[in-house]
């Protein structure tokens, strides 16, 4: 059981490395330009998986406060009729006696970072595909070796 625990404690990190290496190998060795880009996306998602794994916390839930924490039961009835200003006083007043246990929620920071990384990933993928189409328009092929050959023969 101890060996089993040792494996289960880290296997996420191992598999992220395997996926990442699959992607990296495809990026470097594939001949087809679209395949390279698929490899690139796999490579990037593997890094995102790594970051998300950092944020996981035993016994914690998603990083959104419970409804009861935001709107305590005793004033939920007349909350809707509050004026804007009173609502804020209510928030600050009740924020002071709000008890949020740090252990209760997952770490939100890696999630924030990875939202950005996903966006960067799709932007890079789109740009790479645009370059692929431009290359196809100019050389009539999406195989790297064929493009290199046609450059050589054009010389």
């Amino acid at each position, binding site marked *: 059981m101890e060996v089993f625990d040792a494996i*289960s*404690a*880290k*296997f996420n*990190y*191992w598999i992220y*490395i*395997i996926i*990442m*290496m699959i992607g*990296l*190998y495809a990026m*470097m*060795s594939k001949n087809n330009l679209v395949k390279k880009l698929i490899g690139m996306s796999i490579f990037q998602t593997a890094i995102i998986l790594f970051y998300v794994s*950092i*944020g*996981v*916390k*035993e*016994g*914690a839930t*998603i*990083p*959104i*406060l419970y409804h009861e*924490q*935001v709107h305590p039961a005793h004033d939920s009835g007349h909350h809707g009729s509050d004026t*804007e*200003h009173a*609502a*804020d*006083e209510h*928030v*600050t007043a009740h*924020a002071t006696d*709000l008890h*949020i246990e*740090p*252990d*209760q*929620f997952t*770490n*939100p*920071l*890696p*999630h*924030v970072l990875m*939202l*950005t990384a996903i*966006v*960067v990933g*799709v*932007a*890079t993928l*789109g*740009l790479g595909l*645009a370059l692929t*189409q*431009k290359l196809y*328009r100019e050389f009539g092929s999406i195989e790297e070796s064929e493009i290199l050959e046609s450059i050589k023969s054009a010389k």
Partner: protein
Amino acid sequence: MKTLSLIAVVITGLLLLSAVHDFPDWADPESPASDYRLSQHYITQTFPETGVPNMVTAVLADYRGYDTMFETVVVFTAGIAIIGLLRRSPSSRNKDKGKATRTYKKKPDLIVDTTCRLLIPIIQIFALYVIAHGHHSPGGGFQGGVIFGASFILITLTRDLQAAQKWVPEKRILNLAGIGVLLYAGFGFACMLLGDNFLDYAILHKIMPATPTEARYHSMLGVEIGVAFTVTAIMFSIYSNLASNGEMKETL
């Protein structure tokens, strides 16, 4: 080349593996990333400081708002770059030995057409809900924007590009995207003009009928809407450029 890259990949993999035993256990609540005051501060102080229950949204749009502004810029950059790389006027096509001169799509299939007519308004309403409700549930400007953009992509797929362009004409795409980024930056510059640092939304309570905490809350909604504008426009723009090979005329 293949063996060389295999060697490089194996070396990198071993390097990465060699550090795994040094990591804290998976899902360990005592790990430095979870235990450090940064994470603790975000979890416990977000609601008192900003009034937003979804910590991810609050950290994204406020604490690390500068990052998110540039995330929007990345999307914008990709859109402009793809237009710059691929866009060309259809007339130049004739030189390309007239290959793949596809005719316009016939009238779409009845079932497909009706399904999409029913689905698209629902998708768009859901997208608006995701944007507006990002403070309380998963979602926000980016996700909502992608869904909204996807609804236009769906129109393009079932009808053709002209049909989708009735909603988002090509001339307007960059304006829409630019307005989104400007809206985000505008919140930042407004804070600057009022005498505080860039993106320090709290100072906006001077011009909003709100307290500083509420000003943060509402400004975050504002920047999320800006993000949504940009992402919607650019996602559609990227798709229509890729699918029409830069001619914006006929799609797949």
